[in-house]
């Protein structure tokens, strides 16, 4: 193999943008065919579908004029999955036996099982990222990732617990810390990455959302806890229903106290759903803008409006799909139920077992069609859409540094991907 020094006439492009050039029709074809084959193979096809999706997304993404290439194969994912099963089956079996052995104390076993599987899930997330990076090629060089999956898993658990305890206020620092760990262990060739986004900045940007969604929930729960005379309630309940009215009369705050948490939860759910795209946009923009590889810096012009546009497309497609499936389902159920009832032998209106099994089968078919349909629409609108707006709003500086990068990476195994798949924590 002939090699040369990288001093040639390579055109240094100090700044560059990224673009996505994939034809959307091809992606739909890929997804719909994949969904049908998922059903036919009871899910085994997912490794091929995931690989197809990545090949499509990577190949159609151009950064500063050069395309990404995905080198992974479905066979690697399948082997990774089988390895993960080999590890997980004894773990599951052990937990099952432990739960049986401990009898009424089995609650602790399920807590331990939950923690164990959560840690394993975070480990899988980290290792799966390593697999994807080593299968990603740009300008003839692979990415790779070092660092310890267990260390990441412990840190991730710590930050998830902190986020839960602080009702989300620790989330920005958690994300910043985990992202710093991931990025400083990420390399493009021999060019080390880093992450410069600050948790405080993310908190400042997200604080209005937190105030609008989480704070009302907090108030709705805390206010009744302090205004109502809770110690009187057990006696009142023992006294029976008739005393309830009396109690309420004596403590007028109670009606409001019971209503307030309900309203607060409803508010949080509705506003949370409405503002979720804004939240996602903020996090995505903060994340992209914090990425660095050596002298290469990233800026982004991402707007919340485009994230909302992505979700509107999802809603619109889902609505149309839901209406169509609803109509088909009614016709199908009526045909199956009606048809088999009419041809019932003894002439009564009682339904035969065959008709009922037919109804169950039709219901399952409709349900599976719904779920797969929504998942396909989600992939084609939200996943593709966020990928597209994420890349297309990017501007890169200092690209000349790429010319001096040398190759070092060796591919890694797909074990993390397999674990992530078996534990349902997979990503792109």
């Amino acid at each position: 193999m002939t090699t040369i020094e990288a001093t040639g006439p390579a055109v240094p492009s100090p700044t560059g943008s990224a673009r996505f050039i994939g034809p959307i029709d091809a992606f739909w074809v890929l997804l719909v065919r994949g969904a049908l084959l998922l059903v036919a193979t009871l899910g085994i096809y997912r490794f091929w579908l995931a690989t197809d999706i990545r090949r499509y997304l990577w190949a159609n993404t151009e950064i500063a004029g050069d395309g990404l290439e995905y080198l992974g194969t479905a066979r690697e994912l399948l082997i990774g999955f089988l390895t993960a099963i080999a590890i997980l089956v004894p773990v599951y079996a052990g937990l099952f036996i432990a739960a049986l052995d401990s009898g009424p104390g089995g609650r602790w076993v399920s807590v331990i099982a939950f923690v164990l599987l959560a840690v394993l899930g975070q480990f899988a997330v980290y290792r799966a990222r390593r697999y994807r990076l080593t299968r990603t090629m740009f300008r003839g060089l692979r990415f790779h990732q070092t660092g310890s999956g267990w260390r990441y898993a412990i840190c991730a658990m710590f930050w998830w617990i902190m986020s839960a305890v602080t009702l989300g206020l620790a989330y920005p620092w958690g994300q910043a810390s985990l992202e710093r760990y991931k990025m400083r262990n990420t390399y493009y060739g021999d060019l080390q990455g880093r992450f410069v986004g600050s948790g405080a900045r993310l908190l400042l940007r997200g604080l209005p959302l937190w105030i609008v969604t989480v704070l009302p929930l907090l108030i709705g729960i805390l206010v009744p806890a302090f205004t109502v005379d809770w110690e009187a309630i057990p006696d009142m309940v023992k006294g029976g229903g008739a005393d309830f009215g009396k109690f309420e009369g004596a403590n007028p705050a109670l009606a409001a106290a019971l209503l307030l948490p309900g309203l607060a939860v409803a508010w949080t759910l509705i506003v949370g759903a409405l503002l979720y795209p804004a939240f996602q946009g903020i996090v995505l923009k903060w994340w992209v803008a914090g990425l660095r590889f050596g002298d290469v810096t990233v800026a982004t012009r991402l707007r919340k409006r485009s994230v909302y546009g992505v979700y509107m497309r999802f809603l619109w497609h889902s609505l149309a799909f839901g209406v169509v499936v609803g109509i088909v389902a009614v016709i199908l159920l009526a045909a199956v139920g009606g048809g088999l009832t009419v041809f019932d032998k003894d002439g009564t209106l009682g339904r035969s077992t065959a008709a009922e099994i037919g109804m169950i089968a039709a219901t399952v078919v409709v349900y599976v069609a719904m779920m797969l349909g929504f998942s396909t629409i989600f992939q084609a609108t939200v996943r593709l859409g966020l990928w597209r707006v994420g890349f297309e709003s990017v501007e890169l500086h200092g690209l000349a540094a790429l010319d001096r990068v040398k190759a070092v990476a060796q591919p890694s195994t797909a074990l993390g991907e397999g674990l992530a798949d078996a534990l349902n924590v997979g990503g792109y």
Partner: protein
Amino acid sequence: MSTSGAGIFFDGMAGARHEVTIELEQAAVVIRGAADCDMLARWPHDELEPVIAPSGVLRLGRLGSTVPARLEIRDVAFAAAVRALATGVDRRATESRRGRVRVVAWSVAAVVSLLVLGIFGIPAIASRLAPLVPLAIEHRLGRAVDVQVRQMLDTGKPGKPFDCGAATDERAGRAALDKVVGRLEGAAALAVPLRVTVVRRREANAFALPGGAIYVFEGLIDKAERPDELAGVIAHEIGHVAHRDGTRSVLQSAGLSFLFGLALGDFVGGGAVVIAARSVLGSAYSREVEANADAFGVDLMNRIGRDGRALGVILVRIAGAIEPGMQALADHPETRARAVAIGQAASGGSGAALLDGPEWTALKQICARR
């Protein structure tokens, strides 16, 4: 045919982007720097491997090379000329295309054989395995299931214990129940001691757990008009204990959930398929199991000299009261057919009555504390 054209070359060793001139020779393509004409690489035709690229771009790798060098050609006509020379093909794409036909075909075959295993294999394995499970393990299993069942059933009405028969005004009822159970248990010759519990639930129902625990709901005692009817139902449940059906159903559902849940079905909506398959298959197993428990119950009633037909009578009464719903999901075979089969096996009651009048009245009051 043009013999040279422009392209972009990445050598796979460094990240630099080289503008190159590509010359087509007899047996190879020669890649030279566009500015200085230095030869960067020479790839034989049979090592040219097209790899995935956006439409309008021909991207080539070198087959069998560990260094992922890439050559890109964007001029459509020249790209077509180079592609014609390449005897290699997109290895990853064709490999996966050929592979996936095989995968789909074998997966469908596997689905079929798993279904066959689920329908015929697992029940057969579970029925052979259940008698081999040591009684100590069955006891332990029963205790674990018992905790779950109580958590599910006990809706926690304040001021009343979930179990009936403990309060002062319920003790006479408990004694009457023990009398009925004692007579049945004496005739049944079981390997495990029975533990019959009456609980405060409005539904007319009863079930047996692994290890000899039997639950009778208050609603069933309300529905029973004669001691023989209640005894018939308990005899049926004793049939489940004798046949170790609880253990068998735990083995079956563990087998089914392992079969459909862990190894397969991990796609969106797959959970519903698993649950539907398990409940339909599960109830298909239990039809046969229920028929066997009926036969055991009637035989047991015959042995103590009481009327086994009473079981059929109360079953029909209960079935008439509930909604005629999804029969395929109901655990028990069609009630009328069951009652007929029970009637044919029953030999009529000539033995001593199970309870006298006051005892039966007391038993009806076993959940009196309201």
